[in-house]
């Protein structure tokens, strides 16, 4: 029967055309196990960020390798290795890519989860998330770009300081790997160090978990699960015993406590500002004869973290931030401004698929890991190939994130000092190609973050320097092409960012790691 034949052919063609349903595999799940080329055994002498010295926080002397208690610990490894499950093996392989990397990813995920602006109240005002009640709507935090930049910086900084301390103690106590003491213990993944007390992975995990708990207090159960998984992987892998891990988590948390104490007093708690602050910013700009920024949301949303420019970052103090503030953007009455606005309008009215691809690649708006998260993603993909030790991973991420935290502070300082309008406010048809952020235009956050990140990354992975700088340029231009920013916002932002990245490089040259 002819119809049947044709129909059968169509069915077969159809099946081939769409193919079997393809699962989408998150590419990061398949990172290889970390096998450092250089163990950086001298990292105990590197300069920490907040610790006054590597042994500022004391840890207990490990029990002897010949003690009965230690033999019991070795037995725990052996008994768990004997009954390892597929899920445990998968967990072990996941963490083997590097714990500094994995905790960075966990923070990115939580930033994306919490990066949503709260819905308005019935009266048109907006609720402000509360750290004391994180699970009630609006969930705490609203992990917007400045919040995220600061969170990444604290976690990476704490990981780094904790690992410097850990490397100091590892060299001091020189406890060998479990397999050296008991050859019947298998090492199921590549080992990242010769001395194992305290467990460096647990140190990084303890520090990370403590900072994550501060930044995402509604996620304690999830964070604790990850901490347990991370530590469990170490025992199963035959890399560490229970006492290595307990000492590590304790040290990590103690170091994190120093960062937490700083975070509580760095001014971020006041960054939301008050109604009086918001009015002052508007009045000050209008007193200069300029058009003040207005939220383009309905109902009008208060500006995002207007006092964030006063937060204490890691690379510049508040006076330096003010002193390095760029000069004003073109006056809204000037011919130059008109020309810049026309340029934005042209891009808005002539969306081109190639430019849109770049706009969307870099959108990093609500519901994403934010621009600093994107640069952590870019950095980590390349860091994986460098095969650095955990401590060098942490050091490079700490300085990368310190530079983006500082970029956020400097950028927010400029935004709220000038408080200038977005293109959409100045021209009704300046429609945007991605979400319009709810804060003033000058300077572009994307450009400042990207300039800082690309400059610093070019220093630590010089072979990729031209790639980083062209990516930053693209990120910056995407904001003009998306009709979110004027040319002066992106150009000045990029210059600022590159200068801030330079500050991180200055520190990198003197911290003992190069």
């Amino acid at each position, binding site marked *: 029967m002819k119809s049947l034949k044709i129909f059968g052919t169509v*069915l077969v063609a159809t099946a081939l055309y769409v193919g079997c349903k393809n699962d*989408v595999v998150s590419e990061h799940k398949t990172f290889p196990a970390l096998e450092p080329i250089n163990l950086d055994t001298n990292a105990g002498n590197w300069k920490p960020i907040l610790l006054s010295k590597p042994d500022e926080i004391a840890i207990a002397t490990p029990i002897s390798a010949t003690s009965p208690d230690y033999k019991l610990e070795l037995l725990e490894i052996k008994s768990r290795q004997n009954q390892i499950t597929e899920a445990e093996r998968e967990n072990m392989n996941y963490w083997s890519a590097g714990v500094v990397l994995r905790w960075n990813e966990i923070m990115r995920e939580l930033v994306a989860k919490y990066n949503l602006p709260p819905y308005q109240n019935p009266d048109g005002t907006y609720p402000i998330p509360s750290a004391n009640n994180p699970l009630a*709507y609006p969930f705490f935090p609203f992990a917007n770009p400045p919040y995220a930049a600061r969170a990444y910086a604290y976690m990476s900084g704490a990981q780094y300081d904790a690992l410097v301390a850990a490397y100091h103690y590892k060299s001091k106590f020189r406890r060998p790997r479990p397999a050296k003491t008991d050859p019947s213990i298998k090492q199921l993944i590549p080992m990242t160090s010769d001395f194992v007390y305290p467990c460096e992975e647990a140190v990084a995990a303890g520090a990370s978990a403590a900072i994550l708990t501060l930044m995402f207090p509604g996620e304690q159960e999830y964070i604790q699960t990850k901490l347990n998984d991370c530590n469990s992987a170490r025992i199963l892998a035959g890399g560490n015993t229970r006492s290595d891990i307990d000492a590590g988590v304790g040290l990590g948390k103690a170091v994190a406590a120093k960062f937490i104490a700083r975070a509580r007093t760095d001014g971020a708690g006041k960054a939301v500002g008050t109604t009086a602050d918001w009015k002052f910013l508007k009045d000050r700009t209008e007193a200069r004869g300029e058009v003040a920024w207005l939220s383009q949301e309905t109902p009008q949303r208060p500006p995002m973290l207007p006092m964030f420019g006063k937060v204490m970052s890691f690379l510049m103090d508040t006076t330096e931030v003010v002193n390095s503030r760029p000069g004003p953007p073109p006056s809204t009455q000037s011919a130059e401004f008109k020309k810049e606005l026309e340029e934005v309008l042209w891009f808005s009215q002539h969306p081109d698929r190639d430019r849109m691809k770049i706009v*969307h690649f870099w959108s990093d708006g609500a519901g*994403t890991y934010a621009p600093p998260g*994107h640069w952590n993603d870019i950095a980590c993909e390349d860091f994986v190939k460098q095969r650095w030790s955990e401590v060098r991973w942490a050091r490079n991420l700490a300085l990368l994130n310190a530079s983006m935290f500082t970029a956020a502070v400097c950028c927010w300082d400029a935004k709220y000092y000038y408080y200038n309008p977005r293109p959409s406010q100045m021209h009704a048809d300046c429609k*945007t190609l991605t979400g319009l952020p709810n804060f003033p235009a000058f300077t572009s956050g994307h450009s400042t973050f990207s300039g800082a990140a690309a400059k610093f990354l070019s220093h630590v992975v010089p072979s990729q320097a031209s790639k980083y700088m062209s990516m930053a340029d693209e990120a910056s231009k995407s904001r003009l092409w998306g009709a979110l920013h004027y040319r002066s916002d992106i150009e000045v932002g990029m210059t600022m960012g590159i200068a801030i990245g330079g500050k991180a490089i200055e520190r990198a040259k003197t911290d003992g790691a190069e």
Partner: protein
Amino acid sequence: MNYLKSLCLTPLLILGVSHSKAQTDMDGLMMAKRNLCGGIVVGQSQWNHYWEGTLYRNNQNIGTFTSQTAMAMANYGVSDKFNIIASAPYIKNQTSAGTLRGQQGLQDASLTAKWEFFSKGYKHAYVSLLALGSVSAPLTNYVADYLPLAIGMQSKTASGKLMIDIQRNRWFATASTQYTQRGNVTIDREAYYTTEMIYSHLVAMPSVLSSNVRFGYRKNAELIIEAVYDRMNTLGGFDIRRNDMPFLSNNMEASRIGLNWKLPVPKLNGLSWLGNATTTIMGRNMGQSHMVMTGLVYQGEFKSKNTPKS
């Protein structure tokens, strides 16, 4: 959120609601051998409320969402029992509020094979059973990861459908159910969050199950008036988070009711006027669309033999 564009089976749905008895992939009628039917339908769909997960809400930064469609379609009778249907829509989407730029362009082409594998006249009714297979693919490289303004999902699809049509005198009822598999979509971003972080340009699209029931009056496939109930739901997907934007792989559902008609244009043999009004009564992660469509189709034959069934 707008089902016109938020499903890859858009052309099918448009046909389904607007083009009821012109021998489409939603009805139980067949084109006679060597007959060709072609036409243009235009429509407009609007919503100012949508379901964020199951929460029914408006959004003052969207205002009213409007989608306008112009679609070319054709149906050819390979045999009395086997038809081929093709269609391609041009879509323009915009919002009345907010700063986002609207989008427009050619969306997805679809091709359907329709086979009446059983038909029999009983004492009180005439019954036919049909099987349909469809494929669709994007015609242009439009941006998909830009909901609700994206004009489509940028996903290749394949669907299979079973249908029963029962007619008694000039009254009829048709029921069908369809399964659609949707290929992965490549987006411009390199990472995205659903209920977890996914580091990939690819988005896995949940399959879609849809069903359609219609009944009404028809006279010689030329005058048709019918009421339609239509329901679709994705098999999987996730809910839009509170105050987030929609995403391609959301868990989408919609139930719609509508009225379709096809009337002969006087004095112009072979030309028919199509019309449709549809409204969404329940949904999930989609806009509550209200839609009207109208169109003209012309049916002619390549050779003698013009005996449309029914």
